[in-house]
């Protein structure tokens, strides 16, 4: 297991280095690292390279890693909480709430820089609303079935509201901006956006690691978990809050990057450890690798125009996931 984990960590570092080195201007890993740790003074081309590496590529690759880690961990938490392999981070209404928040910000002509904040707030408010609707019997906390259904219902209402508002009050430019945001992407992310969001992701990730035992107990069903002394309602709320914080942070940074939150937990469970805490770490790293790799291809495959990140994610992750499923069917069926 230690070997597999080390290999995954090394692979993540290698992908980060590749993201740092490759692009319109390609440099060697050594040169890239020297540039990162240099002060950025010297000749014109050296300063330009320093700007490209330290101010554009480094925050972008860290954004990719943070978004991947956040979405994958959030997906893992929600799949474990709902005991549903199809659950993804957008299940709890984070996506629809965030989209509503962004639409609101655009319609009210707020500054473009404030859009992540509206996405974050929208996602959190929508999730709390869904959690409120999913309140089950008093001592069992949330009803998982209600959570799934309420999330789906809220998504439909939110998308209808967005379409209505955009049709009545919006301009074509606003609609285009919203669509672009919905497609997801991390181009142009700066340190100013990355640093505060990373803090929220770190809080969410630590909370997720702290709830590992609660996740194991809940995997036996609420009835058994409570008979083993678990306060089911409280644990569900903490896990859900961590998942929502992680997903909302990712959405605020990157818009709607789909797929990674669904497949990364599965890939991690099939390739790596059983213990929940290690699974959380490997799921997070797998998510980071997926987004890093997709973003690398998005930047480098087509020189004239950057490809959409979400589309590439589905193109890469989908076949790999199908391969994994077809090679581990006997384990799933058992």
């Amino acid at each position, binding site marked *: 297991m230690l070997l597999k984990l080390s290999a995954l960590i090394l692979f993540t570092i290698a992908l980060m280095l590749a993201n740092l080195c490759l692009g319109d201007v390609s440099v060697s890993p050594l040169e890239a690292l020297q540039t990162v740790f240099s002060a950025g003074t010297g000749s014109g081309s050296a300063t330009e390279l320093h700007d490209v590496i330290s101010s554009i590529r480094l925050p972008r690759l860290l954004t990719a890693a943070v978004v991947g880690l956040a979405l994958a961990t959030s997906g893992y938490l929600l799949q474990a909480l709902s005991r549903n392999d199809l659950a993804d981070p957008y299940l709890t209404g984070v996506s629809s709430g965030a989209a509503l928040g962004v639409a609101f910000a655009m319609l009210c002509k707020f500054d473009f820089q404030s859009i992540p904040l509206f996405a974050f707030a929208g996602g959190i408010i929508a999730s709390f609303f869904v959690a409120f609707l999913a309140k089950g019997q*008093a001592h069992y906390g949330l009803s998982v079935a209600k959570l799934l259904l309420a999330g789906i219902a809220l998504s439909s209402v939110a998308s209808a509201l967005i379409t209505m508002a955009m049709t009545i009050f919006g301009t074509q430019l606003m609609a285009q901006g919203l669509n672009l945001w919905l497609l997801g992407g991390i181009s142009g992310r700066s340190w100013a956006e990355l640093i505060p969001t990373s803090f929220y992701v770190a809080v969410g990730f630590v909370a997720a690691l702290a709830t590992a035992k609660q996740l194991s107990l809940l995997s036996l*069903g609420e009835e058994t978990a409570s*008979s*083993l002394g*678990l306060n089911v309602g409280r644990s569900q709320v903490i896990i859900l809050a961590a998942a929502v914080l992680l997903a909302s942070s990712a959405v605020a940074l990157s818009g709607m990057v789909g797929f990674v939150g669904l497949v990364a937990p599965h890939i991690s469970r099939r390739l790596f450890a059983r213990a929940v805490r290690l699974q959380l770490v490997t799921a997070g790293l797998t998510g980071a690798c997926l987004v890093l790799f997709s973003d690398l291809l998005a930047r480098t495959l087509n020189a004239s125009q950057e490809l959409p990140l979400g589309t590439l994610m589905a193109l890469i992750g989908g076949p790999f996931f199908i391969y994994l499923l077809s090679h581990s069917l006997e384990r*799933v069926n*058992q």
Partner: protein
Amino acid sequence: MILQAQELALSYGTKKNLADAIVTDISLNLEAGQVLVIQGPNGSGKSTLMKGLARQLKAARGSVSLGGKDIWQMNIAEFARKIAYVPQKLELPWEMTVLELIALGRNPHQKWWSTALTTSERALVHGAMARCGLDGMGQRRVNQLSEGEKQRATIAMALAQEPHFILLDEPTANLDFRYQLELIAIIKELKAQNIGVAAILHDLNLCARIADQVLLLGKASGGGASSVVALGSVQTVLQPEQLRAVFAVDLTIVRDPDSGCDIYIPRSLSDSHKNSSKDRA
């Protein structure tokens, strides 16, 4: 310590409406070291009663107390240190091993974040596995177990909990003859260790072998909620007339000369049941 139900009525849903009660007016005492077997036909609310005793379902009326303290006033971990509950069917995640599953039985004794077992806890978990015939299966994934092995694993998890009382909902449902007898032996051992056991058993013969008390649940002729038809020793409760009235089945009781236990042989559907079937037709 006594597990006590007083005029307990249980219903599902959040409104706790007495009109929707599944069971009503249940009063019972289960002392440490005693075995109570709950009997009754399908749909008579046996599992519902078990959920009420296991703090899974709040009372619509009445109360359940443990050592004189209302179970809903107890901290949930404190309750789980005293009462273990093995439901009829357990959801088992495929990636979990038998050892990991049984070790979760230690949860009520551990800090909320801790999963590490102490040396004595490890010995306890392995002892519970061995007692339930799961020796050498610790590293097997739970989805590779047969239904009977899964059932034994969940019973081992309850044993690892080191409770004062164990509540078993149809623990023999998936067990073959041999393991049914093993389970009876385990229950007798628990009794000898002064642990109280409440179990739902359909097999009257197994019931007669271990029960100190039998609670017979049934519905009144008009339907509605089930309540206690009889509560007492095997000899007083498992009477052919009483069983006929509740199950609508004629039984013959013969004495086993070797064990001295009564053997219950269902013969046929009783006349009243045949008549009611004809009426329906």
